């Protein structure tokens, strides 16, 4: 049996796979910057690294909203995005970003100027502010992955591992960025801990990426089609060279071999960020809508979903 129309069909009137084309580069930059910035904030918070917290908040508070608004069709109504936290991860994420930025800035101000002592506020208030900022950060690190995995349209995305990847990549970027930002500020012990965390997370990232592909491949033909695009097809070179080798294997090798050198740490950070960005881009690009008529298979020879 020859199937002549089961490949990619673009926007045509043919039956077949159609690329996801709604979330594009600006959304990838928005996702990327939110995860990098929040990861840096969270790791810096743990190590009480003020410059890292400020930079993390700045990245999340500027690049993320800018590129998200650039993507929106009607940015003037963007405030409406917070209206349905009961059902939408976009709403939950928007509220969490507000929580992170609001309480994060308050925490940084408190840490910098000692507001508690100056204004005579109870110490518990400062702690509450810090914990609310961390709670916001934890949601921001995951919610974009949750928004993707919530979509049953794309098998590549519809996996509980996608938010895990968001969190892990954010933590990896945060650890590596904190190493770079905290040069001369962090103690040797803290640097060693961060280096170990970054190395461990790079390996975890690799495992999660492989698991996402394996799960998608086994779940449906559309998932297998997406994986083929990443492993053998159109995006294979970018995925292999940029996401896997440059973004994960190289920084891990550099940290394992010569992790204490600043130049090496900076290069590892840069390589990881490039790989992370391309991971975001390719997850968008390789997602495909399945042909809508799988269940009609058999009656006139269409391929079945599984």
């Amino acid at each position, binding site marked *: *049996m*020859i*199937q*002549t*129309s089961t490949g990619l069909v673009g*926007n045509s*009137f*043919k*039956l077949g796979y*159609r690329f*996801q084309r*709604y*979330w594009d580069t600006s959304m990838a930059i928005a996702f990327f910057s939110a995860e990098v910035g929040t990861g840096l904030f969270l790791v810096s918070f743990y190590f009480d690294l003020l410059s890292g917290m400020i930079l993390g908040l700045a990245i999340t508070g500027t690049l993320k909203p800018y590129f998200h608004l650039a*993507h*929106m*069709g*009607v*940015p003037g*109504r*963007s405030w*409406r*995005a*917070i*209206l*349905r936290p009961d*059902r*939408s*991860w*976009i*709403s939950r994420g*928007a509220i969490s970003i507000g929580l992170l930025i609001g309480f994060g800035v308050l925490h940084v101000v408190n840490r910098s100027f000692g507001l508690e002592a100056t204004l005579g506020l109870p110490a518990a208030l400062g702690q509450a502010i810090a914990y609310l900022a961390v709670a916001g950060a934890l949601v921001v690190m995951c919610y974009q992955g949750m*928004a*993707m995995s*919530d*979509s*049953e*349209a*794309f098998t590549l995305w519809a996996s509980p591992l996608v938010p895990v990847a968001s969190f892990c990549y954010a933590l990896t970027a945060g650890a590596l960025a904190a190493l770079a930002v905290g040069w001369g500020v962090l103690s040797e012990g803290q640097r060693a801990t961060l280096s170990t965390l970054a190395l461990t997370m790079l390996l975890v990232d690799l495992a999660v990426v492989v698991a996402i592909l394996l799960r998608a491949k086994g779940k*449906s033909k559309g998932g297998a089609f997406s994986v083929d695009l990443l492993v053998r097809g159109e995006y294979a070179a970018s995925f292999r060279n940029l996401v896997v080798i440059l973004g994960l294997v190289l920084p891990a090798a550099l940290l394992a071999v010569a992790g204490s050198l600043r130049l090496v740490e900076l290069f590892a950070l840069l390589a990881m960020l490039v790989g992370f960005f391309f991971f975001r881009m390719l997850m968008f690009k390789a*997602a495909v*809508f*399945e042909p*809508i*008529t*799988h*269940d*009609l298979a058999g*009656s*006139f*020879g*269409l391929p079945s*979903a599984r």
Partner: protein
Amino acid sequence: MAKLGMVFDLKACIGCNACVVACKQENSVPDGVFFTRTLSHEYGEYPGVKRVYIPTICNQCEDAPCEKVCPSGATYTRADGIVMVDDQKCIGCSSCAVACPYDMRTMLTKDALTTGLFGTGELTPFEQQGYGRYTAGTAVKCDFCSERVDAGLNPACVVTCPTNARIFGDLDDPNSAPSVLIRERNGRQPLPEKNTKPKVYYVD
């Protein structure tokens, strides 16, 4: 209240695309945007090659993923089961478009409303009178011609179909034409594994 749905008779569809044109005409759908399509698929080996036509449309899902993910409340379901988009509430985030497994939503760009059908930047009188219903940047989709339905009429694609391949009616009424077809000819929903409970069925 009714549960409005549609049945596509694949044996009757001849792929003439009159439904597509009728939809464009009724809803002033801009260039490059389609609320309904008639997909074609060829299969088999020479000399036994066959072509089948598969009409597609928004499935007005009972468990609509587009509605669940909408952060602004712009997507909602009417009492009669038609899934609607309020373009005055839509923020154009595209969440609904990536949530729909059937790729039946379109983000309406500003260009779509200004370029014109002939690509000259000038709108024809038809476009001028019709584009007022749209807001650039928002999500658009088929709503079973809700204005016609409210007036007691069938959707434009159903009325136009020369072979009666599109059958519209109340799925809650066991005696309605679509209910009978679904029952007697084993109607099947598209991508049932997505658990969206489409109100569009296919019979062959």
